[in-house]
């Protein structure tokens, strides 16, 4: 009995072990597939990961997670040939697709075929096989081990490569850009086998005699052939094609169009000084009044510095009716205000003696794809603000040494701040999309010389401020110029980064205020539901925000990401777009729209089978 039970235990442990190994393999597979085919949207077009137990002839047996194929027919005549397809066809957005098959055993005669076939091809054959007679299936392509011939939708083969047998690793590469295919043997390319391939082919193997066993590698393991090097070549080719796209005689048109896009982008994000300078040096008109830009800028800065209460107030002042007409927007702002209260950054709790933990106030300097522009809040010199973000960029890296490393973390997973660019859909029904800080600084650096001199001067000025206040960083240095009460200011300077973050900045009064505000929010939510019906987004927003209170250290809780300053960005850009809309201005800048359209075009190329979309990621062009 005891022996039996211990045997059972042993078995169990083996199973557990096998599972974890399997998970490892799964993880490796996912990682490799993502790296190789970043342009593939697997929700739309899943990648092949194993052989399909459904899409096979009965003489085929599968094992080892449907990666191993063996022949189980009698294999007496060519009619006994049998094939199996992978679970999914090869998506065009791969650009270049590759899989390998290792010959575990050549069996009796080694009549093995490796290749591709379209859906609906008779599985009772090798991929283009050969050993069957005339009347051969269309859209089936194979390379055969016994004679090294290639078979292309016909029963007669062409001399192609060497023969292959037990121990060899045969790779099959589909180039979806020029619709060709080549094979590899033990890591060596054998040259083009097929041209003019149709779309939506499945990886396929065919066997014909007993004892034949092959293993597939769809990315579970490193490939023997250096496929990534081949992909590099094609990426370079495609990018060269884009770079050398002929503009011809319309060069002037292009330049003015690009200038317009840059200008409208600057205006949209209220870089008013830069926008003005840019418009002046490129001879363009600005379509919004300067005062209006500055107003928006002011509000954005408040939002980005976490002073939501003031932001809401200012908005109501400058744009009466805007928030009344947009209750959802107001709700969103209020929820954010609540979060900022927890954070201790909102002006209401701040003046109740709370301190601002610096790590929360600091603005992460790391560039993110398509998040909103940064603004520095506390400057009392609005005409400088156009350069603020630049200065800020220059200094944050200093500051990070003294503040918690937290501030440089990229945006946490699942956050809304990095909406995929495709969200800027052409029909415009989805939420708007702000533009990257990365590209905004790129624009700044292209300012004319006179301009950048200005910038230098100002940077110097700020740098002095920073050095005076030593390592405390930019915020402290400039906060001297702010209109904030002195005690708050002093507090901030005294407090250094080592202080532990406390709820609402640690003040009891502030906590009470926050709880009171929370109740208000709750009732506002109920009111909203009665008025406008259920809104799951609002509900979730509120639930997530309240969840913060469930943890003793909300910053390190699973919902703590909400406290990150990055989360202010989507709020900020939503508000900005709403304001712009009331002025009949586009709620997203044409630059963002162009980027969005390019992304849509790529998605469309993927759907229509143009493989070159794989190597033309929009992100590659947003340095």
């Amino acid at each position, binding site marked *: 009995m005891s022996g039996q039970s211990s045997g059972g235990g042993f078995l169990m442990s083996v199973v557990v072990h096998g599972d974890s190994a399997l998970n490892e393999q799964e993880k490796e597979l996912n990682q490799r597939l993502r790296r190789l085919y970043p342009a593939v949207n697997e929700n739309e077009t899943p990648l092949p990961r194993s052989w399909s137990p459904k899409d096979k002839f009965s003489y085929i047996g599968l094992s080892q997670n449907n990666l191993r194929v063996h022949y189980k027919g009698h294999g007496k005549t060519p009619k006994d040939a049998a094939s199996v397809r992978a679970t999914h066809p090869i998506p065009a957005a791969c650009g270049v697709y590759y899989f390998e098959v290792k010959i575990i055993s050549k069996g009796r005669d080694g009549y093995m075929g490796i290749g591709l076939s379209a859906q609906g091809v008779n599985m009772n054959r090798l991929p283009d096989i050969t050993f069957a007679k005339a009347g051969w299936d269309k859209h089936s392509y194979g390379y055969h081990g016994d004679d090294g011939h290639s078979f292309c939708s016909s029963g007669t083969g062409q001399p192609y*490569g*060497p023969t292959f047998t037990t121990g060899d690793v045969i790779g099959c590469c589909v180039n979806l850009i020029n619709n060709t295919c080549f094979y590899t*043997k033990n*890591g*060596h*390319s*054998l*040259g*083009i086998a097929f041209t003019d391939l149709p779309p939506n082919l499945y990886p396929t193997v065919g066997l014909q005699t007993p004892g034949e066993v092959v293993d597939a590698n769809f990315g579970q393991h490193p490939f023997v052939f*250096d496929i990534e*090097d*081949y992909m*590099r*070549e094609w*990426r*370079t080719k495609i990018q060269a094609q884009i770079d050398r796209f002929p503009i011809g005689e319309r060069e002037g048109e292009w330049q003015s169009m690009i200038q317009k896009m840059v200008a409208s982008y600057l205006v949209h994000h209220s870089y008013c000084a830069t926008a003005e300078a840019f418009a002046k040096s490129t001879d363009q008109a600005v379509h919004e009044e300067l005062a209006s830009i500055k107003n928006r800028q002011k509000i954005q800065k408040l939002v980005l510095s976490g002073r939501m209460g003031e932001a809401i107030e200012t908005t109501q002042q400058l744009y009466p009716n805007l928030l009344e007409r947009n209750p959802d927007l107001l709700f969103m702002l209020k929820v954010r205000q609540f979060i900022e209260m927890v954070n201790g950054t909102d002006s209401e709790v701040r003046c109740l003696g709370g301190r601002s933990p610096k790590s929360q106030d600091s603005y992460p300097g790391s560039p993110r794809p398509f998040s909103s522009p940064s603004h520095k809040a506390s400057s009392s010199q609005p005409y400088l603000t156009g350069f603020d973000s630049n200065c800020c960029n220059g200094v944050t890296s200093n500051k990070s040494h003294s503040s918690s490393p937290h501030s440089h973390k990229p945006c946490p997973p699942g956050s809304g701040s990095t909406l995929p660019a495709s969200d800027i859909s052409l029909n415009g029904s989805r939420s708007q999309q702000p533009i990257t800080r990365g590209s905004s600084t790129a624009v700044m650096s292209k300012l004319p010389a006179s301009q950048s001199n200005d910038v230098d001067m100002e940077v110097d000025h700020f740098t002095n401020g920073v050095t005076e206040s030593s390592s405390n960083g930019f915020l402290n240095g400039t906060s001297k110029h702010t209109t904030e009460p002195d005690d708050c200011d002093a507090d901030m300077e005294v407090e250094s980064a080592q202080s532990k973050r406390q709820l609402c900045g640690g003040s009891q009064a502030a906590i009470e205020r926050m709880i009171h505000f929370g109740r208000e929010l709750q009732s506002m939510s109920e009111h909203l539901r009665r008025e406008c019906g259920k809104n799951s987004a609002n509900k979730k927003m509120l639930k997530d925000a309240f969840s913060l209170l469930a943890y003793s250290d909300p910053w390190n809780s699973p919902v703590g990401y909400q406290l990150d300053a990055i989360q202010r960005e989507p709020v900020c850009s939503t508000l900005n777009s709403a304001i712009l809309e009331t002025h009949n201005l586009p709620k997203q800048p044409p630059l963002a729209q162009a980027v969005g359209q390019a992304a849509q075009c790529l998605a469309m190329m993927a759907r229509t089978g143009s493989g070159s979309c794989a190597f033309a990621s929009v992100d590659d062009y947003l340095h």
Partner: protein
Amino acid sequence: IFVQLETKFRREVTATSRHYVDRLFDPDPQKVLQGVIDMKNAVIGNNKQKANLIVLGAVPRLLYLLQQSSSSMELRTECAVVLGSLAMGTENNIKSLVDCHIIPALLQGLLSSDLIFIEACLRCLRTVFISPVTPVQLLYTDPTVIPHLMSLLSNSLRTQEYITQIFSHCCKTPEHQTILFNHGAIQNIAPLLISPSYKVRMQALKCFSVLAYENTQVSMTLVNVLVDGELLTQVFVKMMQRDQPIEMQLTAAKCLTYMCRASAIRTDDSCIVLKTLPCLVRMCSKEHLLEERVEGAETLAYLMEPDVELQRIASTTDHLVAMLADYFKYPSSVSAITDIKRLDHDLKHAHELRQAAFKLYASLGSNDEDIRKKITETENMMDRIVSGLSESSIKVRLAAVRCLHSLSRSVQQLRTSFHDHAVWKPLMKLLQNAPDEVLVMASSTLCNLLLEFSPSKEPILESGVIELLCSLTQSDSPALRVNGIWALMNMAFQADQKVKVEIVRCLGTEQLFRLLSDPDTNVLMKTLGLLRNLLSTRPHIDQIMSSHGKQIMQAVTLILEAEHSIEVKEQTLCILANIADGNTAKDLIMTNDDMLQKIKYYMGHSNVKLQLAATFCVSNLIWNEEDGSQERQDKLREMGFVDILHKLTQSSDPNLSDRAKTALQQYLA
């Protein structure tokens, strides 16, 4: 009128040029400077103006100003810039500049402390040195120059680019490699491989390719060099990545190829098998420039020449064998009609392409029978070789014959395609009048065509080849002498009496004996082989020995008495054994007691091969059923041979003891 106008125009041009030169002599240094600057602007891109200024003597004056320490740094720099511009013109310009001793003057200028001036000098030096008309030796005449250039490498990206470019163009011989190596070229240049400047990286890479070429010392050092913590070989591998510029991929592949051929990297190393070889095969593809395809094919041929495994892999990579067939299609018929410029370009490279393809085929087919078959089955391959053998370009002829030679190692091809295409005809023609290197290859191929199973042997014999081969044996080149005598040896194997007589007559005994004392062991061995083949079958032995017996015996004695390798002595004893097999020829040995003593000596030699050969000889002498066998047996018994034979029956070598027993049986019968 037009002529007049033109002369007038020319006169005016010369007049303005003269004006530029005159200003160089102005007493006011400021005006001289302005003059040089104006001159600089006038010559840019204007070859005629450049030529005019040179003719009018601007160069010595510019050099004078450049060297004068009283000149301002600005003036000296501008002078170097103008000279650099003049050097950018035609080859004649370069010649004139070199004749004016521009090189020492500029090298002197490098001692300045002014970086801008140094860069201008280096730029000009670079332009001069990369020209094919400049003797590279000029870089090495002053031994302080190379170390100084090495020390300037750290100064700026420009100095790095120019200096490495000078090195890579001026490193042409093993001596140059050694000089650069000894002055720390590797340590100084290696860090430049990761320079931010592409030009610097590229020139540094080129330096390594010329330094490593056929140089074991450099190659062995290179494998251990680290660049920023990474092995140099890995840096080269990265440079071969497919997104790198072709020039860089190709040059990195060359570096690794040279290191591999110098035995610094094993041929089965993955950086060779999986990286360098596929990279070079790719370079042969149609999508690349003709120059790149030539270089790729030549480098690949060189890489895999000694290694059959690499040959096998290459032969199945990317349809290489078929891909090479395209090298013969230039100029294409399309290019001829549509585009004159393209036609010109194609024509220029057509020879290079063909010779590169032949070289690569030769290398591919040098060991593996299947690959040879694949090559001969490539479209029109044999026809292409045949026409290649009679092309005007020496390079193509040489490569074609190399290819033919490689394929001639195949018994099957000798029997089939070689005969079908009568390759012996152009080959014979090639042998009539060709430079030595072609002759070596051609005669070596002929050796194979004369093998007894080759159907081409008969027609070649009839074409009067014997005389040709005999003349080759008189060549100064040991390789040609070997091939000549080797071919004769092959020809004599199981040949008719007539052929043998013809060989002996044509070669002449005097030449035969001269070859037997040839300083080259290979020649000696093949000559002995020839003798052995001549002295086979009894009637032939007797006939040849009756006419040349005395000399042959003399030669045999000489060889056996001299210091020679075991192989030579063995071959000689075999000849003796053949002589002992003749009817009348036997007497030449039997009457020569000295020779018999020698045979006895070798029967007791420590080397089994020699014992065996000597025993063979005795066995032939005492063979029964031949006239006079009794007397011979008696004589040899008296001399103590029987005792030795008895001893040899106890030998641990089964062959030897068998042979000795067989011999002893002759006494019992």
